[in-house]
């Protein structure tokens, strides 16, 4: 069993090594990649993915998956944007609870469909991916929320800083990671999520209210996606019904599986996930520096997911969990 642990440890150490190796390699070619400035660039690239990755990590650990988080992000951002447009005098911070609650509500919707009808989460959230996106169009009348509508204070969070010149948005993302760590590691909820994902059949025998934990996980994932939604408005200064959050779920899944979260549930750490996010951030920041067209990015994400799946399998050699097995 020390072997397993050392492999898991090696996974995180491995990502650190990969990050360093990657940065060094790029740095040899483009020395200014190794400056504080580029660290800032990378850190400014990742906050949304970081928050989404925390959400997806919790869901995957519970042996589910949520494909709708990009649409939840978009919907929550749109609700907040509409609020700012319709009530220009509203205190800007009100956007945060509104976004988080909106996201939580949509996440709860996923959770209810999964628990009440015992449907596979991947199909449910494929449906809500489309449904929530459609609702975003409907509530916005398919119009973008423009830059002028988003409160200046909110937009400023992406560049002003309370401490060490680190912008608010980065602090919030790392704060979320820290809180996720605390929840995952130090609360009953966190441990029950891991237990549920580790052995769903045994969970009820050990007093875990499976439905409740599942609902909480999806609601949390929704709430975090909602938070990412308002931060999207802060970072990019607009909310677009079709672009905002589109494809977000794939970036997040890529980051999470690189970080060593298992698709078979029960396995995944916040530190690994953070590292996975940072590695993706490094890659995204380095591609344009190296003059590699951005169009390669999706192929890289896809390849990374497939490779991570194979690594995951070789690490854990667990039995088949195909749909047919699950049903019989």
């Amino acid at each position, binding site marked *: 069993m020390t072997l397993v642990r050392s492999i898991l440890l090696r996974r995180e150490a491995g990502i650190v090594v990969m990050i360093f190796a990657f940065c060094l390699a790029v740095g040899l070619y483009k020395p200014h990649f190794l400056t504080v400035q580029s660290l800032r660039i990378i850190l400014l690239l990742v906050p949304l993915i970081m928050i989404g990755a925390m959400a997806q990590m919790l869901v995957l650990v519970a042996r589910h998956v949520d494909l709708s988080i990009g649409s939840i992000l978009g919907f929550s951002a749109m609700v907040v944007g509409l609020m700012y447009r319709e009530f220009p005098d509203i205190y800007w911070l009100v956007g945060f609870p509104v976004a988080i609650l909106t996201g939580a509500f949509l996440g709860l919707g996923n959770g209810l469909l999964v628990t009440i009808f015992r449907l596979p989460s991947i199909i449910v959230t494929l449906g809500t991916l489309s449904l929530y996106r459609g609702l975003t169009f409907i509530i916005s009348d398919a*119009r*973008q929320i423009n830059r002028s509508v988003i409160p200046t204070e909110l937009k400023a969070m992406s560049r002003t800083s309370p401490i060490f010149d680190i912008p608010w948005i980065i602090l919030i993302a790392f704060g979320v990671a820290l809180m996720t760590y605390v929840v995952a590691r130090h609360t009953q909820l966190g441990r029950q999520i891991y237990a549920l994902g580790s052995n769903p059949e045994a969970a009820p025998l050990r007093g875990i209210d499976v439905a409740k934990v599942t609902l909480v996980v999806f609601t949390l994932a929704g709430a975090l996606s909602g938070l990412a939604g308002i931060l999207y408005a802060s970072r990019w200064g607009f909310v677009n019904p079709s672009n905002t959050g589109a494809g977000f779920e794939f970036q997040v899944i890529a980051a999470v599986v690189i970080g060593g979260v298992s698709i078979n549930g029960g396995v995944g750490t916040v530190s690994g996930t953070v590292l996975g996010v940072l590695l993706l951030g490094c890659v995204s920041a380095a591609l344009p520096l190296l003059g590699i067209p951005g169009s390669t990015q999706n192929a890289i994400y896809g390849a990374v997911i497939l490779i991570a799946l194979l690594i995951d399998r070789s690490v854990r050699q667990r039995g088949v969990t195909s749909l047919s097995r699950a049903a019989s």
Partner: protein
Amino acid sequence: MLKKSLLAATAVLTLTAGTSTAEDIDIVFVGKNTGNPYFDSLTQGFVDACEVIACNFEFVAPATAEATSQIPFLEAQIQRGVDVIAISPNSPDALNQVFQSARDQGIIVLTVNGDITGNEQFRDATILPTDFTKVGADQIEMVGSLIGYEGEIAILSATTEAPDQNFWIEGMNETLANDPKYANMTLVATVYGDDQPEKSTTEMEALLANFPNLKGVIAPTTVGIAAAAQVVQSRGIADQVKVTGLGLPSEMREFVKDGTVEGFQLWSPYNEGWLASYFAVGLKNGTMTNEVGGTFEVPNLGTITINEGNSINTQAALTTFNADNIDDFDF
């Protein structure tokens, strides 16, 4: 004069579409995608024009700007038997077949704000906001004036294949090469942000990293210029790197006001819609033709000439927006 017409146009923004009669001409505008603020303004031009002249206007657009996503909408318009289809095409060639069947049914096809370059035979005319051959030169002049006609500049464009942007970039290169006024300016890089804020931002950051002596950036795309401005704003280097390009006043107002961007350019999307409605009705009623060299009158815009390739421009040159006039525009 141009500014006046822009003002006149914005003045009627608040009007709403009125009732119509059975005799009215049905115009449908198919946008690139929904949720694109540029088309909000353009659509308003249609709406307001149809308020004045006898036409029914509807706006439809697919959810994504994917090349084929407009096809079902075009098929549906053919089925509904509209009189005029105005469209901002998502692809220069994927729509040819549908255009053909529309025109076979006597529907007038106008491309608006973008053309199907190389397949012009599939549409009746194109309405472009300005003379695209001059955009490149105007933009170089704009950035030159901001950086004192000296130093390194770069271009942050949309996608590598965006036809309009590539056409303008070609113009910029020619201007730089041939006009001695810009002899001391060097174009060091042309990069592509794919009209996505994230990618545009990383490309802009990479420009700053790769070219420490960069003086100016031209971003001839609304997403790109906003992203570039945001990077400069965030780094606080507005005095070192001048950002300009083509942008929407509504998105750029903040950057102009805080001094991040001193000036940028665009045309009036509103006027495109306005003109397109008049032209469409005129064509259908037979009061106008699409023959090259012909002219017609459009209220607020004056005399319009049909140029080579059945191409119509709504304004002669780009409008420049800066701290002095930015508040006058509402799109």
